[in-house]
């Protein structure tokens, strides 16, 4: 028995010496120290892989950036009675609720930007990464940062420009001008285009067929879009041209039903659905209806909307994009029967399929044609622009029938600039509908067709918003800065109309 007590006494002695060691619990089994992450190639690339993985597992964000702008624009009819959804849809977002559906865009956007900033700084400071991996990590991080700032600046206007991971700086940061945000985006994409490779690489830095991580073409494609938005026609023209000329990598897919398949030749950058439950594209699972649109679901839940009659009426006869990219279901229990048309670019609307065949399309070649067309028309090379539009029209053209003897005719050369721009707006609307917020951003950035001093939104939205049960104001072009953000950063200024 004495031995036991000797041990207890020993315990007292041990205490005096062993304290500090005992209370250093070390790192948890499931975590790595940030400094370790950027000391080896595999984990440094893993940090970028983690960014893509967190996007794809976050259906809220994925649907938020592609669907919410579509809800705000004139493309859809909403059937949900959810208050937050109705507010986004009817351009009447409340500023008094503690959280809005649009907050996702801001909050998750900055989370992604944090990761990009951390990866960029980590790779830049690391002395142990191999040169190709350092370039890949930095290029991908710059691309992703630019991608999110592009979305944020179009959704919220001049947002705070966060380029470090220092919370003390970032918690009291002020808004930047729209121009300053674009300057950063252009710098990032230019740098990324220099660092990224022509071919696609995977998470180990090895060449792959999967077009799910940005490469040089992706940086150029996004940069051409950014130049277009900024009115730098020459740069947009030349960069889109470089991408289009890269026919070894990219080509238009003839069969419209195959455009949105995984790694299609038209894809410049896709996001692989590799997330929650069933792993299908959030766009497909959101849009593709198997029954009436739901009244109780939400903008983040999906299956609440159908295409608007105004949009459906915009299709020209003999356009295969109507037959291949739009589908419908009919409810025969009502009298008369009700038919709902919905976007059918992605065909898979439910979960649980054995293999994933579709990826979310973020950048595709057709858009580059549209960018070059617009840049050329604005530059005055109207016919060159029309030629680009005709490439897309040709692809979408149905076979001639008795009913439609002249399906989707090619646009005539020699159109006036105004007529060419009208055709361009129409072509963008039809080609890019329900994709990545294109229509919403176009309405806001493009000059009016009737009154070029105003925006396209000024011409389209008053009627569209009225049809949606709201009333239009220029103020609704931007979403409100989240209320939680306003309360936690004194220096932020709310967007007009939401103060």
């Amino acid at each position, binding site marked *: 028995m004495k031995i036991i007590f000797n041990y207890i006494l020993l315990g007292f002695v041990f*205490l005096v010496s062993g304290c500090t060691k005992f209370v250093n619990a070390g790192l948890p089994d*499931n975590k790595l120290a940030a400094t370790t992450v950027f000391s080896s190639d595999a984990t440094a690339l893993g940090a970028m892989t*983690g960014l893509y993985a967190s996007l794809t597992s976050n259906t*809220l964000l994925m649907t938020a950036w592609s669907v919410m702008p579509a809800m705000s624009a004139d493309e859809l009819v909403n059937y949900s009675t959810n208050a937050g959804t109705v507010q986004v849809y009817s351009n009447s977002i409340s*500023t008094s609720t*503690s959280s809005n559906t649009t907050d996702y865009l801001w909050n998750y956007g900055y989370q992604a930007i944090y990761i990009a900033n951390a990866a960029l700084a980590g790779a830049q400071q690391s002395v142990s990464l191999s040169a190709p991996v350092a370039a890949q990590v930095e290029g991908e991080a710059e691309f992703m940062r630019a991608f999110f700032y592009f979305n944020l600046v179009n959704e919220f206007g001049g947002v705070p420009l966060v380029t470090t991971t220092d919370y003390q700086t970032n918690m009291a940061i002020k808004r930047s001008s729209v121009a300053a945000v674009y300057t950063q985006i252009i710098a990032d994409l230019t740098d990324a285009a220099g660092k990224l490779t022509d071919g696609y690489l995977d998470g180990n830095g090895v060449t792959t067929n999967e077009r799910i991580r940005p490469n040089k073409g992706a940086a150029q494609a996004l940069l051409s879009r950014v130049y277009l938005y900024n009115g730098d026609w020459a740069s947009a023209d030349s960069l889109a041209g470089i991408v289009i000329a890269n026919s070894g990598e990219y080509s238009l897919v003839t069969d419209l039903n195959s455009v949105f398949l995984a790694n299609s030749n038209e894809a410049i950058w896709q996001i692989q659905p590799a997330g929650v439950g069933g792993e299908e594209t959030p766009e497909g699972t959101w849009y593709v209806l198997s029954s009436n649109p739901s009244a109780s679901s939400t903008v983040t839940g999906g299956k609440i909307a159908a295409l608007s009659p105004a949009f459906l009426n915009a299709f020209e006869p003999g356009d295969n994009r109507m037959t291949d990219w739009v589908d419908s279901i009919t409810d025969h229990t009502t009298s008369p029967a009700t038919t709902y048309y919905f976007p059918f670019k992605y065909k898979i609307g439910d979960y649980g399929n054995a293999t994933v065949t579709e990826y979310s399309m973020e950048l595709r070649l057709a858009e580059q044609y549209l960018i070059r067309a617009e840049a050329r028309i604005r530059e005055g090379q109207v016919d060159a622009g029309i030629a680009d539009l005709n490439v897309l029209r040709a692809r979408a053209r149905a076979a001639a029938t008795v009913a439609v003897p002249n399906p989707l005719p090619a646009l005539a050369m020699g159109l006036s600039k105004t007529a060419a721009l009208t055709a361009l707006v129409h072509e963008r609307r039809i080609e890019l509908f329900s994709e990545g917020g294109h229509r919403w951003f176009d309405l806001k950035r493009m000059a009016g067709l009737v009154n070029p001093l105003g925006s396209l939104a000024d011409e389209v939205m008053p009627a569209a918003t009225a049809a949606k049960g709201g009333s239009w104001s220029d103020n609704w072009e931007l979403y409100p800065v989240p*209320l939680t953000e306003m309360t936690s950063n004194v220096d932020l200024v709310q967007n007009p109309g939401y103060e």
Partner: protein
Amino acid sequence: MVFKAHYAPPCPKWGLTKTLLVMQLTVLLLTVAAFGVQAAGVAQTVTVTVKNAPLEKVFKAIERQTNYVVFAHADVVEEGRTVSLDLKNVSVAQVLEACFKNMPFTWSIEGRVIAVERRPVPGLAVAPATEAPPSEIHGRVTDSSGVPLEGASIMVRGSKRAVQTDAKGIFNLPLADSNAVLIVSYTGMTPRTVRVNAGLRSGGALHITLLPSNNPLDQAQVIAYGTNTRRFSVGSVGRISAEDIAQEPISNPMMALEGRIAGLDLSQTNGIPGSAQAITIRGLNSLNMTANNPLVLVDGVPFLTTSLGTTGSLSGAYNGANYSLSMNSGLSPFNLLNPGDIESITVLKDADATSIYGSRGSNGVILITTKKGKAGGQTQIDVNVSGGFGKVGHFMDLLNTPQYLEMRHEAFNNDGETPNAGNAPDLLVWDTTRYTNWQKVLLGGAAAYNNDQVSLSGGNENTHFIVNGSHIQQGSVYPGGFGDNKNAGRLGIDHTSLNKRFKANFSVGYLVDNNTFTDSYFVQEALTLAPDAPPLYLPDGQLNWAGSTWTNPYSALQKKFHAKTDNLTANGALSYEIIKGLQIRATMGYNNVQMNSTDAFPESSFDPALYSNGQNFNTFTSASTETWNIEPQLEYRSVLGPGRLDVLAGTTFEQMLTQQTAIAAYGFLNDALIDDLGSANSSYTTTSYSKYDYNAVFGRINYVLADKYIVDLSGRRDGSSRFGPGKQFGNFGSVGAGWLFGNENLIKEGLPFLSYGKLRGSYGITGSDNIPGYGFISTFSPTYNQYGGDNGLTPNNLANPDYSWESNKKLDGGLELGFIKDRILVDVDYFRDRSSNQLVGYLLPATTGFNTIQYNLPATVQNTGLEFEVNTVNIRTAAFTWRTSLNFTIPRNKLVNYPGFASSTERYKYAIGEPLNVKKVVPFAGINPATGVANYYTSKGVLVNSVRDLTLPQDFSASVDVNTEYYGGIQNSLQYKGWQLDILVQVVKQLGFKNMPAVAGSMNNQPTMVLGRWQKPGDITDIPRFAQDPSTIAYQNWAYANTSNGYTNASFVRLKNVALGYNLPAVWLRKARIRAARFYFQGQNLLLITKYKYGPDPETQSYLLPPLRQLVLGLQVTL
């Protein structure tokens, strides 16, 4: 009984090695009170017939036939003399006389004890005993069953001399006065005064038996690392006993604290069995609302205060996996304790009581002590079975179908819209003549309750044991067979060596809990479903989805939730008395909680029309928390000068490892395979891991001077792994003092009605490390999904290497008074706790990439309060007793200062000078009589007609205090012969949230009070017009709750508990050879008086299951 011992006769050596000698001194006298042999006047005659028998045989015969106990010295027996006797029906004295006639032994009878010892040898004999005053007195103090009382204090009246007994209960006291009066006291026993018998010879021994005290002041209460009594306590301590717990039909022992302890605010968040409660002791100390949990120790082992997790919380895990839930939600960890195993729960409140727990005592400490085997050697079987049921106490008044339809049509009219099948299936698709009382359908069931406990205890003087088995089952008021089922077993053994210097106790408990409560929304549905909603089933027995126009509430019955939790607790303590008064001991504990759950959403729980292939899913969760601790301690108790000294020093090593793996699996081929992970089409895994290491040295000095003045000092140096390098250690301590002024002669003589008076106070610093680990280092963890076949890493947090201990300065003052021989006891406490250097997850804007960072906020939060406790014995006669105990607390909470508040991210959440859980709101300006829409004031006092015209958060210019204004409980206990009635009433005064689940006019049922709404211009009302279109201002205003109108009186008086018991008369029981039997009835939540109408219960204040009304009958038998 023969006591083998070595009696050392007085000799000159005595004085030299007194300590050692005393330790060798053995018992002279020991009494054993045999059960049931108390009847006075029974003739004690004996019949002894032996031939050449050893003396032992005679002693045994006497013991068998009488209630005398014989104590003989070892050498009496060892000498091996034999005796022959043939005596019939003679007195004990005659037997002894005959027995020792020719032997060198002498005998004496004191009380029920017969002492036999060697006759003094002539020549060595001192002067005749009757003449010489004893110069030294030796004695032994035991309880009524003969168990020695260690540390009993013996004082000589009128002198400052005092001694304490050793492990064997023996004391040795130099004495000058032969007529000295000794005052003998011991924790939990009635103090006794003993006049030193002049007949006691020098070196002779005195046996003093102490009886358990009925005076609550002298009952033992468990405190940090020991026990004391209220009388000698300087700290602020509350306590409930096994009897209090036994009165309540509960499966979670913490529920018994509600309404019984001043300063402890406990409220149920949900009436579902096993769900968590919010427990705060003396208010919210931390701005970090999840860090206000008290420290809970079960037999000295830290017990988890957070749930091991619940289900369905896996989505949105962007910021890394943190699924642990606070005490305020999920399954309560205390549900993993068997109420029947618990001997007492002690609540430590002030610095004096808690500072020895250092960094963890900031929010108070709850000590749970399990039952130990009872001393006395009686083998005893206790059976306690009870059963009953619970029901929802009262339903809300909701609209009936005609009223509901009127509301809906009016809402469409107000909005100027026409209902269509999409937005109004309740008007156009459903059968509008139907009426269903959904509260009755979904909440109208009776939840079966069963609690069966069996225990076996016994042992001998050195070793006791208790074995307990229990089964507790609780059903639900919902449709379907949801329930919680607990089976538990526990074994406790304690042992004392023959020489009493070594002591050991061990206990092991195992509990298995099976919970099948799914995360359904029955309560919300019961209260909001339209009364004309379709039938649940189609005629063919299939669930009715009514063309996807509703979510059938019975689809929840298709979901399957099952959580099985195993809780293993083991603890032990070893102690050894090295020299008199100095004890070395070690306590060790181990606790392992394992939870495995599945939460299945089969295809059958979805609307088939909306179901997409592979949407069925199941979440498999496996979580464990493993804790061990070792606390070596040294304690020295001695008499120092005129008082008693108790010094404790010790150290703690503790480790807690928490792990969780959750697998969300999708796309099962068939619902029948949904519990098979291998059958899932896809799955992803998330893990969490946290290790906590804690180490401390602590010490305490307690000195009681002349039973009047008490001083307590304690200190602790703590290290915790939750802090970064260089910040791990902190120092904490307290000073406490008490003055038992009632013992001053001046008071005794001047105020004879005052039987007890104590003034006490304490001040000290405790801390808190109640934060998640690893916040000081920036980490990445794997993403749970792969991308492109590769694993990713994602950042977990923003790192702050600089944060350290939060400190809480606690000031406490108490006045305790006893009147009329302590029949009225009053205890008034004032406290002021100021916690600063607040450890919070500081709110950050999203631009930082995260929501929070671990941070020391320089803010100071102050909790002050007054606590009253009154215990009275109103009537005490032989047949009838009426006792009342009352507790009452007035808490106040205030954010005292917050440097840089105006620019902090929390400036719209709190206000300086106001309580922490103040709600910042927009001032409400009433309902505009012209439009029927709610109006508001901006911060500049401008009246606006729409929430969209408010500038938020700047217009949060008013605040509402939702702190409890006061709370308390009053218990009356009436005892008449075999009957006992206990009634506990709970009182709470507070403001509560007006919980409107939906805008009146939307497709949701509403409380009938909405009928008082605005209908036409000129109507003056506080209920706005009905609205149904979310894009209208009327609707958005309705939905806006953050106004000064959003809160209402949520005070209540609850008849919390009624327990009626009847003890069967002893006469009946004796025939049946049963020691005790009791029938009882228990009723819980029998009556609720409240004005709160915005939910089923003002305590839960939400559309969650209210605390149930429980009725239980039971039978308790002791064999």
